[in-house]
């Protein structure tokens, strides 16, 4: 049993290392040019956002529309710190301070609002994100509506990859633990979870805090890549975009969120050339996908590396079936 597990871990490691090296080589070779690097960055950041929102909405069942708010806290914190301390140390401090600050706000906001259910929680979190945005417009340190410029760039593929993999591992491990089980039980039936002795408020708040923490990281990476921040980047639409990725990928599927984040960003990059029609086509695609896969691309299932094994297995069994058929035909002749 343990051996199989280790084998899987080694395979995962090789898969991750290969992904990292291949992309890194493509960047060196300039096949992924500056423009495509923007796409790559957006993909990584969206993966962090979507996977963390999936923990809140997909796994714990709490409909939140406030993810852009948490992201903006991470972004501004990191920007303000790196503007004053433009070193790699400042960047790290910025990312972690941003994440912790976002988590703290998640805690403060979550404690009272997570007593609400469904639509009410969505409205409350939406309100929270708007309040945060308006605070940033009115603060001096954030330079109001004009925003912050010339933020030093530290985010690159290496950091994106590390933080992205870190987030996904954090959340998948959390979900596999008893705590994750408790969160899923809350989604399935809150009253039943309560009567099993699960402290539902506590787990809802924990999911909210972890989600906010990761959104803070995503925001910090964003700030440190795109040089420029203004409050309007983090409006209602940003939260909705993240939610679209989560729903499209499948509520309750981490790999679904990852796939959807990649897919949607690639689609929107390709659509850049149809500037006027872009949003129309994008929206149309969403409608079509939701019509044919209402449960999202993955439903609540996960793809793992075992897919390759299964593909191999299917191929083998298919071949042997063919062989058998061939042999039986031969026999008849």
């Amino acid at each position, binding site marked *: 049993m343990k051996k199989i597990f280790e084998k899987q871990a080694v395979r995962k490691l090789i898969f991750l290392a290969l992904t990292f090296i291949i992309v890194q080589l493509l960047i060196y070779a300039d096949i992924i040019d500056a423009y495509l690097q923007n796409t790559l960055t957006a993909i990584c950041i969206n993966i962090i956002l979507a996977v963390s929102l999936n923990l809140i909405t997909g796994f714990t069942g709490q409909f939140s529309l406030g993810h852009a708010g948490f992201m903006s806290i991470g972004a501004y914190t990191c920007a303000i710190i790196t503007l004053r301390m433009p070193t790699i140390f400042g960047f790290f401090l910025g990312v972690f301070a941003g994440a912790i600050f976002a988590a703290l706000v998640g805690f403060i906001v979550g404690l009272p609002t997570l007593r609400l259910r469904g639509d009410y929680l969505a409205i409350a979190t939406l309100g929270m994100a708007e309040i945060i945005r308006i605070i940033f417009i009115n603060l001096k340190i954030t330079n109001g509506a004009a925003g912050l410029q010339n933020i030093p760039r530290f985010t690159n593929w290496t950091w994106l990859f590390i933080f992205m993999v870190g987030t996904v591992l954090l959340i998948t491990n959390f979900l596999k633990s008893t705590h994750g089980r408790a969160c*899923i039980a809350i989604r399935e039936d809150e009253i039943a979870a309560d*009567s099993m*002795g699960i402290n539902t408020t506590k787990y809802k708040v924990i999911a909210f805090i972890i989600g906010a923490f990761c959104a803070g990281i995503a925001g910090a990476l964003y700030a440190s890549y795109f040089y420029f921040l203004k409050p309007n980047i983090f409006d209602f639409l940003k939260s909705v975009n993240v939610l679209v990725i989560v729903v499209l990928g499948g509520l309750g599927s981490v790999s679904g969120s990852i796939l959807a984040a990649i897919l949607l960003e690639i689609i929107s990059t390709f659509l850049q050339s149809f500037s006027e029609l872009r949003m129309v086509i994008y929206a149309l695609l969403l409608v079509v996908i939701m019509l044919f896969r209402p449960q999202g691309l993955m439903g*609540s299932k996960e793809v793992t590396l075992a897919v390759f094994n299964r593909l191999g297995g299917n191929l083998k069994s298919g071949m042997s079936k063919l062989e058998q058929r061939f042999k039986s035909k031969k026999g008849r002749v």
Partner: protein
Amino acid sequence: MLEIRNMDVHYGVIHVLKGISFMVNDGEIVTLIGANGAGKTTTLRTISGLKKPRNGTILLDGEDITATSAQERVKRGISHAPEGRRIFPDMTVLENLELGAYLRKDKEGITRDLKMVYEHFPILSDRKKQLAGTLSGGEQQMLAIGRALMSRPKILFLDEPSMGLAPFLVQEIFNIIKNINKAGTTILLVEQNASMALQVAHRAYVLETGSIVLSGTGSELMQSDEIKKAYLGG
């Protein structure tokens, strides 16, 4: 084992339970019967900590647990199979049962109790890998009771276990309830199916619009004219 004294419960301005008092002794099956809206479910929800009473005391083994949380009450041995089954539909039967033992740390005890649940409900053993949402109504009810047993309760609350089930299944469920009781678990049963409930119960209380109006042994109440007229259709 369990004693309720003058419990008052309100939903907003509505006074649902009007100072009810009753008790459940060790090893008994006690049933609360009454019409829709009498406050039966509210009684169970309040005792298991899902709803806060405005006044009154809840004693478990002589200790006042009125101010404790629902989690604490599960730890102390109260287990509640809520109304309408409320199983976790997208989890397997086994995962549902494991969640019933959520607060327990003794792995061996959990394995033993899992076996015990499978003995009471062999069908659950056959279906352990199946998603709970795909079970039939009767099987879901069995799962809900099995899950409640997994916390190794001293006292088990069953809320309308016969709801929506075919008559022969109701009979089966009630036989299992009797067996669980014989194996040593005290049971507080809430039912609309008064005749079934009175047959299995040692004692019963009749709840009418938030007050207890009658009490006695199961067979006593079965004979009572009032009960016959109001609840047994004769």
